């Protein structure tokens, strides 16, 4: 055993193990969330949801995954081959990477980058390109519409996300994820200090994950699944998995920046548990609004971003900046 370990430098081992763990987390999150989403959707409509496979249908998402993997990949005749094949991979890869910088616990973080938050945001915006590539290369007008919509939507909603996160960064003076968590020790969570930024981030974050009520890029009833109409089998599965991983990214960022990360009672022992509890309650909220509100119209979507979220985020940022600058002068 010693000799095997000696071949690999410890840094390489660390990268391998953390990479495997992060990918496992993404897949596990997909399995669990698909189950809970369908179950909760059932209960919100007075139904039972999944019941058939396993106790209360717990094995359903596993069986669905096996079905998707074993299905043949149908590639239509007139698609743009290379782009069409790369798009699902590109939709999946960037959504795995943000988990490398998320502090799941006091010592449970792969890399504490000093630009962690920027890294997460950069990877988040890559997802748009994957969706655009998928829609463009499908050579199908509905997929194209979906792709165009996703670009317009994500450009509009990335601005309020960045502005609202920036107002937290102004307070903490660091982009490092664990630095931001450290700044919230002792129960001073930033949701109390920046409630407006939290609300703006939550609304824009749901829009960023392309989920109902902002699911215009897929819009089953208008665009027949939009950008992933032409994808079958595991290519579709990767888009699907990417969506759930994106949800988890948004929840993790919200937990880290606004809900105190792993802080909570007995945080030395239950820190990670607190983190996941907070992240998954935000996931629950996302599912809740998905099964409550109808899809918005496109002009309503744009109005919400440009007329409400961005001005409010800007004002919030200005007030925060002024407070950070002048309050210490008054109180010290």
């Amino acid at each position, binding site marked *: 055993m010693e000799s095997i370990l000696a071949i690999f430098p410890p840094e390489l081992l660390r990268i391998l193990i953390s990479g495997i763990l992060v990918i496992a987390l993404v897949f596990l999150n997909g399995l669990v969330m698909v189950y809970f989403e369908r179950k909760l959707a059932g*209960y919100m409509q007075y139904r039972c949801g999944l019941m058939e496979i396993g106790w209360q249908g717990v094995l359903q998402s596993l069986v669905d995954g096996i079905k998707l993997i074993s299905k043949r990949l149908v590639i239509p005749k007139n698609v743009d081959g290379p782009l069409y094949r790369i798009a699902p991979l590109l939709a999946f890869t960037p959504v795995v990477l943000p988990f490398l910088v998320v502090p799941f616990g006091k010592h449970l973080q792969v890399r504490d980058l000093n630009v962690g938050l920027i890294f997460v945001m950069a990877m988040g915006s890559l997802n748009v390109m994957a969706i655009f590539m998928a829609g463009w290369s499908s050579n199908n007008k509905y997929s194209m519409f979906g792709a165009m919509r996703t670009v317009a939507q994500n450009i509009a909603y990335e601005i309020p996300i960045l502005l609202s996160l920036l107002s937290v960064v102004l307070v903490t003076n660091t982009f490092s994820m664990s630095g931001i968590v450290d700044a919230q020790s002792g129960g001073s969570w930033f949701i109390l200090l920046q409630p407006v930024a939290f609300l703006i981030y939550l609304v824009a974050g749901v829009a960023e994950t392309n989920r109902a009520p902002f699911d215009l890029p897929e819009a089953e009833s208008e665009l027949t699944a939009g950008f992933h109409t032409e994808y079958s089998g595991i290519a579709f599965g990767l888009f699907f998995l990417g969506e759930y991983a994106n949800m988890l990214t948004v929840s993790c960022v919200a937990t880290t920046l606004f809900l105190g990360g792993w802080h909570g009672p007995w945080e030395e022992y239950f820190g990670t548990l607190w983190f996941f509890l907070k992240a998954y309650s935000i996931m629950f909220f996302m599912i809740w609004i998905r099964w*409550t509100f109808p899809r918005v119209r496109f002009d309503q979507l744009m109005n919400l971003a440009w007329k409400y979220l961005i001005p409010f985020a800007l004002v919030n940022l200005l007030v925060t900046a002024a407070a950070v600058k002048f309050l210490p002068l008054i109180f010290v």
Partner: protein
Amino acid sequence: MGGYFSDLIEGGKSLASGLAVTFKAMISPVVTVQYPREKIEITPNFRGHIELTLDAEQRIKCIACGMCEKSCPSGCINVISEKKEGEKKKSLTSFMLNFTKCSLCGICCESCPADAIRYSNEYNLAGFTREDFIMDLVKRLEDKK
């Protein structure tokens, strides 16, 4: 700027009340009946295909008068009877119902002078051919016994 903030407040209120609706639905009990595993009581108003009734001594009440056959607007009932030797009354040999034409109007049940026809509670009707639904009600009654 007219209505900028009032839109925000009104919209927020309606979103919150919408969330309350689904949350209440989520915590209230489900209404789905897991059909093959659990079944619910059939209401007395349920109209299945018609069936013959028995009297206290387990004999068919039908007196083979043929009123139902005459009153049926779709002509889907065919009562066949014979007069056995040594008996005063006619006795029923077969009571054919063509359920493919029956509209469940119930005039046969109303017209019956002997109260010999009623709606059954049978809702699991399935068959492979049309002929499966031309039923002999006497035979069906005996099979049920």
